[in-house]
């Protein structure tokens, strides 16, 4: 078995998800190469070389891979995939954008959001918003897989794998980068945070999300949101937790003013401890919460902040 892991980047730096994908690759077994593709990504490549389990890092550093646009990234993977039995990426918006292209061009299926490895060809993945878990077996010659980070503990960093350049350069005249508006935040990344506090429609408006800030500061938490809060414009889209947003599984998840629709639960129900704060004592969120506090969030949040 030989596995290629496409590294996930965030603003040119190695994203935390990659260490989880490598853990999934270790369970499959075999040599694990990591592909770091982008522009100005030497630092990311060096960070990847430190991750345990990595045999070698391959770096494609070229302007054509800047922002990891789907067309050149797919073409690059097709060039490299011949050396491998498995190609893995994180189920991030980049992994989901690029990997299906590789699969289609190789005429194989893609397995999305894998949460467990049963063997080199059999995997578990959630379907129907996580309300069922499917075990699927792939007889394709090349397995193309996106990995859900929360399913695998990250590998450690004690390695110094060799780093080598990939000189494959592809053409791209079809798509071009225009701009990016990235939310700047000093808080931990939603996907990797130990504590997440999320607000829903009950927060009332964007200004009120400040009520979560002080608590998040004290707990070192990331801040998330329900779809309703994002749709209403309270907070940006990258904060959405759920079936079609981010999947989180922190040690502690605090849902504030969130009713607990199945699509929201799909993104957080694997958290270790769930706290729900809601004024409606029948809200479905209480069915999954370890600790429920019924009441008005506008009274509870300031009290919680001062007592923590």
């Amino acid at each position, binding site marked *: 078995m030989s596995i290629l892991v496409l590294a996930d980047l965030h603003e040119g730096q190695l994203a935390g998800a990659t260490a989880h994908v490598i853990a999934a690759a270790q369970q499959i077994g075999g040599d694990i190469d990591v592909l770091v593709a982008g522009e100005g990504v030497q630092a990311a490549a060096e960070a990847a070389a430190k991750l345990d389990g990595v045999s070698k890092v391959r770096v494609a550093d070229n302007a054509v891979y800047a922002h990891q646009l*789907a067309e050149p990234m797919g073409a690059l993977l097709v060039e490299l995939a011949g050396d491998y039995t498995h190609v893995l990426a994180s189920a991030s918006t980049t992994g989901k954008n690029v990997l299906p292209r590789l699969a289609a061009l190789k005429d194989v299926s893609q397995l*999305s959001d894998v949460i467990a490895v049963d063997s080199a060809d059999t995997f578990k993945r959630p379907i129907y918003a996580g309300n069922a878990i499917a075990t699927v077996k792939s007889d394709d010659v090349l397995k193309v897989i996106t990995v859900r980070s929360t399913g695998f503990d990250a590998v450690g960093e004690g390695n110094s794998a060799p780093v080598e350049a990939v000189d494959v350069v592809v053409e791209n005249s079809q798509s071009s980068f225009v701009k990016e508006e990235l939310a700047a935040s000093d808080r931990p990344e939603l996907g990797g945070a130990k504590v997440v506090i999320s607000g829903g429609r009950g927060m009332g408006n964007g200004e009120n999300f400040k009520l979560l800030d002080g608590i998040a500061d004290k707990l070192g938490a990331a801040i998330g949101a329900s779809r309703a809060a994002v749709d209403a414009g309270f907070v940006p889209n990258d904060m959405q937790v759920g079936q079609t947003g981010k999947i989180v599984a922190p040690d502690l998840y605090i849902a504030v003013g969130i009713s607990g629709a199945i699509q929201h639960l799909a993104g957080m129900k694997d958290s270790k401890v769930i706290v729900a704060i809601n004024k409606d004592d029948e809200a479905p969120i209480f069915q999954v919460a370890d600790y429920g*506090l019924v009441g008005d969030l506008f009274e509870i949040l300031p009290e919680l902040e001062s007592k923590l």
Partner: protein
Amino acid sequence: MKVLVAVKRVIDYNVKIRVKADHSDVDLTNVKMAMNPFCEIAVEEAVRLKEKGVATEVVAVTVGPKAAQEQLRTALALGADRAIHIETDERAESLAVAKLLAKVVEEEQPGLVVLGKQAIDTDNNQTGQMLAALTGLPQGTFASEVAVDGEKVHVTREIDGGLQTIALTLPAIVTTDLRLNEPRYAKLPDIMKAKKKPLDVKTPADYGVEVASKVSLLKVESPAERKGGVKVASVDELIDKLKNEAKVL
């Protein structure tokens, strides 16, 4: 410009699913079915492009059993001009659907193809990307804004860190995210009119595409149930439980 929209028949998003007792699959007997919510957004976007005079014709296509014609009729009621049903009772996975859609693209030569980003049954999130790869057309996935501008389309994408805007040469493939638009409801007169709009029925064999995939479904299980916990009476009690019982503070 012609716009092609792909719609999928799926379980209604409000329905709580059940796993079959023999663990062979999810039980869909007598379950309410509907158009995949992301496909509703796709249809809406196509219809708005027509209303703005950017699109001249909207063609809806689905791959699925006979009953999937209901979702095509919904698309027609929402404003699509005609529909193509590629009928199969086999489980059509994303790759097979993408291959079939690629044939339809070849035949219809649309300027834009709009798909949902994800079907809420399989949660695959792949068909649009696969279609783009197979047709050699550029892709703008997870779109929250689509602006056609001459020979190009600008697509704003919902990515993990925020928003990204890219420019694609037309023809292009777009997949919809939740914030792209708010789909309208079909009005009764439009539902009546939709019954008379053209709907072509084809089979995968007509396009020379094999639907079977090399991925087999071995087992479907319910996830580990989470037990509801306790209600606490005060903030003090909550903090105490989190510190001393759950030990997460």
